[in-house]
């Protein structure tokens, strides 16, 4: 198998697995209980909190553990919007957010909030000035994705965050695809809220975190016991939290080494595809991108058809079109970048990981040459 879908999920790092095991076995205590095995669980969680905080330049008590990126986004947006409702009802976000933000905003719209979806240019970039122009006296919250899951395009977060800070608006960023791929420091980008997720950086699924800058107004969305500073009720998933922090720590500390390696592999993939296959376009090519992601349109052939041919060769990638999920709409991200319906439908995303090799990249390119040839022979559209 050649696995090139690391933006979907990553395999568990062996060291992370080892770190988790004791908390699934002998250290099973409820971290809120009184006795020794409970105190061990508590200590592990607080140690994890410290580690996770260090990864993004935060303080330990600014980290709340959640069930993943989606819950972090929900807590950030619903929590801040509800806490600030009396101050205003306007929220600014972008047109290329992950569905966890997009659909949460649409839900808040039904609750009476006004949402502005800021567009992107053909490179997938938001213009910070565009955001500034849309701020009103009612604006309480801004949410901008750090790095896009489909294209890997990195937004000018420092500029956007500075505007929010200047105007006294709470700033959230969905950094699920950024943490572990590029350096992310909450102070550099003036973030008040930042979502990240364990399984995107070789940690376990079902665990994430939300950074909440001290004194940020926020109300919980899950109510119950006094866990996680009263912001996220529910007995802590000790093993997952330990795994999350271990994975974050390994990913962030190996960034300097991994980042050029990823970029070299990604560039090799793109260069060879461009050299050998006609009618190919790399989306977001002229914008800053995370080093592992490549989003490519193969004109006149359907993305899902490429994916199935790749799957038959045991190569895992993902499609830019939501048609793989049975929904015929094209990707909202690619549409926002101005791609035609047909180009959006012809897109495949390759997201590389640390275990990928040059040989795997070359085999993938060979497979793509064959697949593109085969599908273009069938295609009713000429390149």
């Amino acid at each position, binding site marked *: 198998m050649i696995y090139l879908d690391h933006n979907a999920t990553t395999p568990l790092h062996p060291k992370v697995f080892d770190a988790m095991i004791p908390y699934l076995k002998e250290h099973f205590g409820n971290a809120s209980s009184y006795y020794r095995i409970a105190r061990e669980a508590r200590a592990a969680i607080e140690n994890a909190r410290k580690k996770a905080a260090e990864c993004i330049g935060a303080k330990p008590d600014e980290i709340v553990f959640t069930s993943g990126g989606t819950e972090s986004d929900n807590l950030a947006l619903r929590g801040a919007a509800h806490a600030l409702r009396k101050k205003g009802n306007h929220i600014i976000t972008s047109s290329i957010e992950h569905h966890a933000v997009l659909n949460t905003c649409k839900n808040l719209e039904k609750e009476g909030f006004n949402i502005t979806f800021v567009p992107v240019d053909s490179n997938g970039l938001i213009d910070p000035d565009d955001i500034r122009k849309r701020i009103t006296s009612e604006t309480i919250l801004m949410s901008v994705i750090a790095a896009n899951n489909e294209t890997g395009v990195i937004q000018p977060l420092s500029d956007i965050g500075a505007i929010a800070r200047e105007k006294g608006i709470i700033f959230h960023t969905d950094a699920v695809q950024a943490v572990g791929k590029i350096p992310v420091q909450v102070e550099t980008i003036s973030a008040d809220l930042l979502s990240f997720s364990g399984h995107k950086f070789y940690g376990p699924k079902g665990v994430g975190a939300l950074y909440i800058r001290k004194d940020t107004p926020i109300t919980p969305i899950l109510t119950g016991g006094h866990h996680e500073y009263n912001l996220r009720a529910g007995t802590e998933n000790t093993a997952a939290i330990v795994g999350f922090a271990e994975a974050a720590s390994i990913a962030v500390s190996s960034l300097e080494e991994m980042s050029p390696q990823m970029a070299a592999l990604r560039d090799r993939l793109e260069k060879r595809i461009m050299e050998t296959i006609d009618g190919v376009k790399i989306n977001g090519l002229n914008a800053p991108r995370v080093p592992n992601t490549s989003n490519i349109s193969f004109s006149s052939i359907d993305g899902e058809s490429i994916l199935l041919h790749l799957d038959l060769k045991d190569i895992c990638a993902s499609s830019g079109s939501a048609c793989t999920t049975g929904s015929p709409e094209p990707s909202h991200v690619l549409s926002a970048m101005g791609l035609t319906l047909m180009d959006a439908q012809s897109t495949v995303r390759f997201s590389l990981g640390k275990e990928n090799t040059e040989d795997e990249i070359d085999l993938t390119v060979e497979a793509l040459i064959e697949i593109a040839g085969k599908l273009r022979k069938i295609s*009713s559209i000429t390149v």
Partner: protein
Amino acid sequence: MDANPTESPQQWGPILFYNETLIDHFSNPRNVGEMTEDEANGYSLISDPSCGDQMKLWIKVVANRIVDIKFKSFGCPGAIASSSMMTVLARGKTIEEAKRLTDDDVIEGLGGIPERKKHCSLLGVGALHEAIKDYEQREISRKKK
């Protein structure tokens, strides 16, 4: 949850399970190609506006029977496989028989298609009916001459 995922793939979230027949028609589509104006006497070009799939179809009708059929298609695996299956079913049929072909016949021929991909199977049959219409109109104008 005791349902067998292979029996009802559509109940198992967005993952689409294609069966072997469908994958075979996708990997080795039958009757792919084009026909020239001289070779074909029926042609259609149709697209599915909901998902951007497109199909071109050529038929050659001799003595009221489809003796040759060729297609080209831009689309997902469901669209390619159902186009291929449609040509297999249509080849050799009389015009009247071909007109009676439905998307259900194509789906049955493929041994089933995921629920959310059913709209793809309409493309092939739609193209066939349009090509037959084109043939019939050509026949009318030919006879007038």
